[in-house]
């Protein structure tokens, strides 16, 4: 690895592979996605978040485009919507490029954006293989192809939405908001002390009622106007994921709450909080072990965490 700062303070960094460095947050999401064995949706989402949106804007027939694009919408998570788009596109792309192009035209999707997403996906998978987070024991090879990704063991939790959301939360943290619903069904969302709103693009914006377990939101984008800040691309996340992958955790024994980063209060028994904190340290040790190459992927620990979440 080289890092060159020229006399004009331009940065030239030359790594062993020819890709530009991955954004730290995206990188974290990918690493936890691989650890939690839900790599396929996470790679797709990471690729979508770091490139243009596949939902192209059509000025002429906006209504038709919107209706067509709505087919892919996931009822609970904007992130899974991206996965649905990708899955449909990749099926078309397997046939031929012209088929993929027709699919995009028919469904009012951006072909250019999806090509870009496809490239990022390949890049992320190669990088993860390179640092030893993805490997296929069955084949005995250290490389995993894009096509095998769905079937490999690192993708066995892909159907568990809570696990995928936990990996997302690790990457998007501190983009967390707390949703409260009063008995009269008024919804208020807070990020720290600031009140925020759903952007109309988010799938949750049109919902009137949320279940009692849907309290914590992870979001990707914020839009600001002079009077209000709104969030788009959202999904609900399990409070345990916040403790495991979030910021500094303080367990308050007498009040029976766990406080994360001084504003997220989660009610739970102090013992549970302490055990979760211990799990967090164990995860750190696991990552440490992977650097030294001594410990192989500790599947018992990971499976335990997955069971907790889903």
């Amino acid at each position, binding site marked *: 690895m080289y890092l060159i700062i020229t006399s004009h303070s331009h940065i030239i960094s030359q790594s062993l592979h020819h890709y530009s460095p991955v954004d730290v947050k995206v990188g*974290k999401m990918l*690493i936890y996605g691989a650890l939690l064995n839900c790599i396929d949706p996470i790679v797709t989402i990471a690729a979508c978040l770091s490139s243009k949106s596949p939902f192209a804007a059509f000025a002429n027939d906006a209504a038709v485009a919107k209706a067509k694009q709505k087919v892919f919408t996931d009822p609970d998570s904007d992130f899974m919507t991206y996965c649905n788009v990708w899955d449909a596109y990749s099926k078309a792309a397997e046939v031929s490029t012209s088929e993929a192009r027709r699919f995009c035209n028919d469904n009012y999707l951006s072909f250019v954006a999806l090509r870009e997403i496809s490239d990022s996906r390949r890049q992320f998978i190669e990088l993860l293989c390179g640092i030893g987070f993805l490997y296929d024991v069955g084949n005995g090879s250290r490389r995993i192809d894009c096509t095998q990704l769905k079937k490999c063991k690192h993708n066995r939790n892909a159907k568990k939405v809570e696990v995928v959301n936990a990996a997302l939360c690790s990457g998007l943290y501190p983009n967390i908001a707390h949703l409260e619903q009063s008995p009269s069904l008024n919804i208020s969302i807070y990020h720290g002390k600031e009140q925020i709103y759903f952007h109309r693009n988010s799938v949750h914006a049109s919902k009137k009622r949320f279940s009692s377990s849907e309290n914590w939101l992870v979001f990707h984008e914020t839009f600001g106007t002079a009077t209000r800040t709104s969030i788009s691309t959202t999904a609900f996340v399990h409070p345990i994921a916040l403790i495991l992958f979030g910021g500094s955790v303080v367990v308050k024994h007498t009040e029976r709450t766990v406080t994360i980063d001084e504003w997220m209060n989660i009610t739970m028994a102090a013992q549970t909080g302490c055990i979760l904190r211990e799990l967090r340290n164990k995860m*750190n040790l696991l990552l440490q072990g992977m650097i030294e190459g001594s410990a192989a992927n500790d599947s018992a620990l990971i499976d335990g965490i997955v069971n907790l979440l889903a």
Partner: protein
Amino acid sequence: MEYVSESLILSLAALVCHLLFYRFLKFAFYFSSCMSGLKLYSSYTAESIMKQASEPELRRVPLEEVCMQILASGFAPRSCADFLSQAPQPPTDDSIKAAITVLKDVGAIESDDTTPLKSERLTPLGRHLAKL
């Protein structure tokens, strides 16, 4: 795109293009062009406001990746700020601090606040991230 280090976001902003670029365009008209918008300027503005050359990259991009590479390669025994201040045109303290804050939020680095000389260290997660 311009990076606002206080709020940690990339935002679109009107930038006055630098003089080298302006000279390049001067043959045709007195105008400066920024991405897509065009605006006419007087020669007075050109000489008084426009900078000689473009801002160095270190001063206008987010520094997270750079800081992480510095720590990963062991160039900076104590802190990134020390190392970066040796650059010919060092980045502002604010942007370094912003980068360090982001890295801490992500959990890629941890710092020892107990000793008077603050030292920054990569966590295990940070070391994996630096390899990406």
